[in-house]
């Protein structure tokens, strides 16, 4: 999802902590475990100094994000901040390999051994983990007054079956990029409806001011579902009924929305047909090289657009909430990782303490500054330091307010494959109603 953060895997491998007894044995010279013990004792000198024996030991697993520091550094900071809990960091692959992260988590959680005690999860896995009984409901620890500090869209995504089973951590969402200079020539007003957007884009394209009016992501992949969720929700449509037991994708709101996407390729031609094979990066490149007027993408594009080495549109790019249909509201597909507690954790209180700490204002503040990941607490967008150091992020509060969760169902992995295939077929063939009917029937079979 986020190209800018695909760093190399760091060496923040967690170090097993070794008790004082172990070290004494090593000193005595019991040679049997020499190699392992020497390594362990050597590396644990820093952390193990605290009263190791009396601390509750828990583990934390997360996809590896990078910035000025790593999540391993965060955990170290937590370990040093108190002397009751000792957290072991389990590093999973980076978020770009999200299928592998998912597999890794499922395998550990399915064993029901209580490891990891606390974990971070992509928003689309929350329902599945909750339905399997792996995620501890957090309602008693986080009553309504504590929850009001988070974006409501994120809280919705963290709720399954009426229970809060995840705690918001950091987020991203789809947003509308536009070229200020080209827009200036065509009215200067950021379009708020899809129809206006199409008219302006077509006019700019016709006038030769720009090659492509609007870029989006039509590759048969997860991102297509994100684009679809946004445009369907902005027409008061939905993919699943509120009870999650049937599909609404063949209803008027959804069909009109998908038809609009098809029209951008076939009728008003504001998008090149290539978007059918483009995910995030291929659609970003023409935009930052100055060939496109509007684009839907994630927040990672902005720093690239402002980087003179990679972009020809420095200082010419603006960001706004995505347009909507008449009578609908702008909607942005919610992404990001949220926190969960293992239902089988043997150290529940310690796990909750770590969870609370990780999602606290202070730590979200630190993550925003050091990782460039946006907080899930709206209040932090007013923070002076964030405004100064991450001015773009601070401007996103309005976009994130419209963040909408993808279909909340434990069968999401199957639903998304059906959606990717069905929507791709509709976009290629143009038989939107027929393809959506077929997709709805397939989804009904999965979730019904």
């Amino acid at each position, binding site marked *: 999802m986020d190209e800018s953060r695909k760093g190399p895997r760091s060496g923040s491998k967690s170090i097993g902590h070794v008790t004082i007894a172990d070290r004494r044995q090593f000193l005595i010279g019991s040679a049997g475990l020499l190699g392992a013990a020497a390594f362990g004792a050597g590396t644990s000198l820093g952390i193990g100094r605290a009263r190791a024996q009396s601390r509750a030991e828990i583990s934390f697993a997360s996809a590896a994000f990078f910035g000025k520091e790593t999540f391993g550094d965060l955990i170290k900071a937590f370990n040093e901040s108190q002397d009751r809990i000792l957290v072991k960091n389990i590093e999973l692959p980076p978020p770009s390999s999200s*299928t592998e992260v*998912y*597999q890794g988590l*499922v*395998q550990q959680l*399915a064993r029901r051994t209580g490891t990891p005690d606390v974990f971070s999860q992509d928003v689309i896995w929350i329902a*599945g983990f909750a*339905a*399997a009984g792996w995620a501890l409901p957090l309602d008693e620890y986080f009553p309504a007054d504590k929850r009001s500090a988070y974006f409501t869209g994120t809280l919705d995504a963290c709720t399954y079956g009426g229970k809060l089973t995840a705690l918001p951590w950091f987020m991203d969402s789809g947003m509308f990029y536009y070229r200020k200079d080209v827009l200036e020539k065509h009215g200067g007003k950021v379009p708020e409806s899809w129809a206006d957007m199409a008219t302006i884009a077509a006019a700019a394209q016709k006038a030769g001011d720009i090659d492509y009016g609007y870029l989006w992501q*039509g*590759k*048969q*992949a997860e991102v297509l579902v994100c684009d679809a969720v946004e445009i369907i929700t902005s027409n008061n449509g939905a993919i699943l009924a509120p009870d999650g037991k049937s599909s609404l994708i063949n209803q008027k709101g959804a069909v009109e929305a998908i038809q609009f996407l098809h029209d951008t390729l076939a009728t008003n031609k504001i998008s*090149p*047909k*290539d*978007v*059918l*094979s*483009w995910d995030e990066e291929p659609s970003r490149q*023409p935009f930052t090289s100055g060939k496109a007027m509007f684009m839907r993408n994630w927040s990672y594009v902005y720093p690239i657009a402002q980087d003179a080495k990679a972009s020809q549109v420095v200082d010419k790019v603006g960001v706004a909430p995505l347009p909507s249909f008449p009578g609908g509201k702008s909607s942005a597909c919610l992404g990001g990782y949220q926190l969960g507690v293992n239902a089988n954790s043997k150290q529940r209180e310690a796990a909750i303490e770590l969870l609370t700490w990780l999602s606290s204002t202070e730590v979200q503040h630190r993550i925003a500054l050091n990782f460039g990941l946006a907080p899930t607490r709206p209040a932090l967008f007013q923070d002076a330091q964030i405004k100064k150091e991450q001015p773009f992020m601070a401007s996103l509060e309005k976009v994130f307010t419209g963040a909408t969760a993808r279909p909340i169902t*434990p*069968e999401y*992995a*199957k639903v998304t*494959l059906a959606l*990717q*295939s069905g929507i*791709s*077929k509709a*976009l*290629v*063939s143009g038989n939107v109603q027929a393809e959506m009917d077929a997709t709805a029937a397939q989804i009904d079979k999965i979730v019904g």
Partner: protein
Amino acid sequence: MSAAATIPSVGRPRRLGKALPGALWALLLLTPAFVSLASVSFYPIVNGLYLSLTNTSLITQEQDFTGFSNYVELWGDPQFWNAWWHTIWFTTASTVLETVIGLGMALILCEAFKGRGLVRAAMLVPWAMPTVVTSKMFGWLFDGQHGIINYLLLHAGLIDQNINWYGSTDTAMITIIIADVWKTTPFMALLLLTGLQTVPNSLIEAARMDGAKGWITFWYIRLPLLMPTLLIAGLFRALDAFRVFDLVYVLTGGGPADSTETLSTLSYKVLFSTLQFGYGSAVSTAMFVTEGVIALVFCLYLVRQIRRAQ
């Protein structure tokens, strides 16, 4: 090891030697090899077959024996058949093209000319490249907007507007086949070259003496003698092409509109994205069976060829 363990072992071989007949000794010595092979090859296949008869899913935590219900579902699953046909089409097209072009390359490389060693080595470069790199490279070559292929065709006047190579259902699979042919033809050429070198020169010289020209020599002498090699190379290639994954995964992800979905990408999605190990194993087993049938057809044909030659 402590002393306690070593003392009794001194007398053991002699005693055992008397107790066990020779054949049993041989079996005993084969056991380690058998166990290691069985554990990495036989067990996974049998376990896969067993899983395909269950509804195992990591997400629902079910693991019940359900008989052939996965196969019944598979039989009526349009996505499976869609992927099945794409895989067959890909396998046939790429194997035939690679064999024909590879044979041409082998015939050229078989002749003596200056710098032949260098050409032979250079030929292998595409094959030595990791497939993911090839995929990325063809992604750029066939890019709908900036691809050099479109540029060349456009300037040569062969097309009047850019072709959306892997964004269109008409051309996506063809693009993938072209990439595969580019990558794997050298492998075929290499196999066929070794085959060609086993054709005795005396036969060809004798044919020349009798007045046979190049084409006749190829058609009546080289090709029949090359047939077994050709069939074995074709079999290798077909079985390999059947499990195409990386090209599709990197270039199109199975899209657009499922037009490049193959059995490998489908079973990956079912097994590892949705974690339905039962149904996914059924897809894999269907793949296994189809590959078995392909291998059988090739082998029967090969045996017939060899018998006829004798």
